């Protein structure tokens, strides 16, 4: 029950963290099929823009426009999956970046209805009867509920037959295809589902801060998301969530040196890839492994050899 004991400022921090948890958890769904996208943050922006425009210009209630934001992001991902999934690896990475950047530049270029470089302002927060959900305290619980529901659904997908197929496509796509898996369709399904959830995250962000503009969804932010996911590790469901939590807390400690943030992110990223390639999620196992190795050195002939402590899955 954190919100009862923290300040307004810390409440903001928690809300942004929760929103970012959806961003990384949905991103992981794409990585389970073996692809790394650079368009995810733009999909988040699509949800934010769609929800803001539907609320402000079509006069819809935020309760309706926020899920529709997710739907719009999912539809956009569906359309993009036709060109993008002809590509793999590098080409997919750069293709997703190009698609995202083109969409983002459209927000910048076209004042109607996207508001140009200044974006959209005064996006109303949802209301529930007399209750103003936009107040930080209430919005925290609202966001918490949305995040928990999203995480449960994402987790269920991963544990389902579909999740297993994603995994099969990741490690042996040709083999998967040869046993009758329509790989294109499943890749598309992963991208669309992930985009739907990140679109919801974008809508949550838009209706809380009230102002969105193209720079909020630029390459720099996308690279931060990539750092969160890589540092946390992509082999488990909780890895990216650990990554975003740890790095957000570090962000708070270095708030006085905001300018140095990319330097610290870059350093952490390089250190992780070089020395902990499976991410923070593998740290306990690694520590255990080192400790065992140390003990074995200290007591050379003791008991059977310890089992391999490495994760059974290798990095991509």
């Amino acid at each position, binding site marked *: 029950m954190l919100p009862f004991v923290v300040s307004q400022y810390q409440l903001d921090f928690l809300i942004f963290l929760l929103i970012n948890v959806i961003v990384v958890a949905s991103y992981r769904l794409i990585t389970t099929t073996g692809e*790394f996208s650079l368009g995810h943050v733009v999909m988040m922006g699509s949800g934010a823009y769609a929800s803001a425009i539907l609320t402000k210009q079509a006069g819809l209630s935020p309760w309706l426009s926020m899920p529709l934001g997710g739907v719009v992001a999912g539809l956009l991902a569906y359309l993009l999956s*036709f*060109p993008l999934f*002809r*590509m793999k*690896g*590098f*080409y997919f*990475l*750069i*293709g997703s*970046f*190009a*698609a995202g*950047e*083109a969409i983002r*530049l*459209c927000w*910048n*270029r076209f004042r109607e209805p996207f508001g140009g470089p200044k974006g959209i302002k005064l996006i109303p927060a949802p209301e529930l009867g007399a209750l103003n959900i936009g107040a930080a305290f209430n919005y925290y619980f609202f966001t918490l509920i949305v995040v928990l529901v999203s995480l449960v659904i994402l987790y269920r997908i991963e544990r389902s037959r579909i999740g297993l197929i994603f995994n099969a496509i990741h490690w042996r796509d040709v083999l998967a295809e040869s046993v009758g898996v329509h790989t294109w369709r499943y890749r598309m399904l992963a991208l669309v589902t992930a985009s739907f959830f990140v679109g919801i995250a974008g809508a949550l962000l838009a209706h809380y801060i009230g102002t969105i503009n193209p720079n909020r969804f630029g*390459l720099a932010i996308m*690279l931060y998301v*990539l*750092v969160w996911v*890589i540092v946390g590790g992509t082999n488990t469901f909780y890895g990216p969530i650990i990554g975003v939590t740890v790095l957000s807390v570090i962000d708070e400690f270095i708030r006085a040196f905001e*300018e*140095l943030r*990319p*330097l610290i*992110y*870059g*350093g952490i*990223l*390089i250190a992780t*890839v*070089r020395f902990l*390639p499976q991410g923070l999620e593998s740290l306990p196992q690694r520590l255990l492994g080192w400790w065992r190795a140390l003990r074995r050195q200290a007591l050379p002939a003791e008991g059977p050899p310890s089992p391999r402590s490495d994760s059974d899955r290798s*990095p*991509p």
Partner: protein
Amino acid sequence: MTSLIIQTVVNAFVSSSFAALMAVGLVMIFGVMRVINFAHGELYMVGAYTVWYLYGENELPFFVAVIAAIALVGVVGLLMERTLFRPMRGNPLGGLILSVGVLFILQVLAVIIGGRGLMKHIPPALEGQWDVFGIEGVSVPFQRLVVIGVAVFLLALLWLFLKRTKLGWALRATAQDPEAALLQGISINKASLLAMGLGAALAGAAGGIMAPLVRVDPAMGHAAIITAFIVIIVGGIGSLEGAVVVAVLYTFFHTFVTTFLDGTLASIFGLVLLLVVLTIKPTGLFGKGEKH
């Protein structure tokens, strides 16, 4: 109207020079090491900062500053290969992610050294202009001709190096087939160092010669890397000639659309073009397809 078109053509050639230097460097790095260097735009930025610092602030001769930029960025490239890309060999995605780390670090270093938000005033090294064929109202500042001249000179030098020297052959052999090259006694470590050093140096050169013409700030690598990506993907990621040809074609297209419509639209068209090419022929127009 004629004058505007001629001016635009010259501007397009200036952009081509910069884009070709960037793209050829990226293609060389990719060819030998199979890594996309995401920090290439930041190497370009470091080149521009070097010229700003040495020539703009400390009044060293322009060409000395450019040579220093080439050398400094080349050394940064060597360091990146030795400490980051080499341990990641065989893991292209790992290399790419490490280069993202470098991107972040170089951006912050630029802010620390140069300060944020200040327009860097870099005076042109050569005053005066060339009146094109004496046509009324058509003139090209010498500074722009310098960019074109330096780029053509460097690319010609690189071409001679790759085609006429043993080291150049070794580099091309490694790009073609690393294992066969290894069997011929070519050290992949040395070839990678060479490719990364040369590729980075070209980015440094691009930044150095462009510095007096563009806005020098820590984020300038962003637009540069987008242009370079479009060029290398459309040109086929393994083809140096393709990169140069597409650099010229694409920057002409981009400059003309920018002049007669607007810059953002030009970039949107470019990105859509990139997607279309990737969709139709994922190895690029000049690419030969990758060996598995």
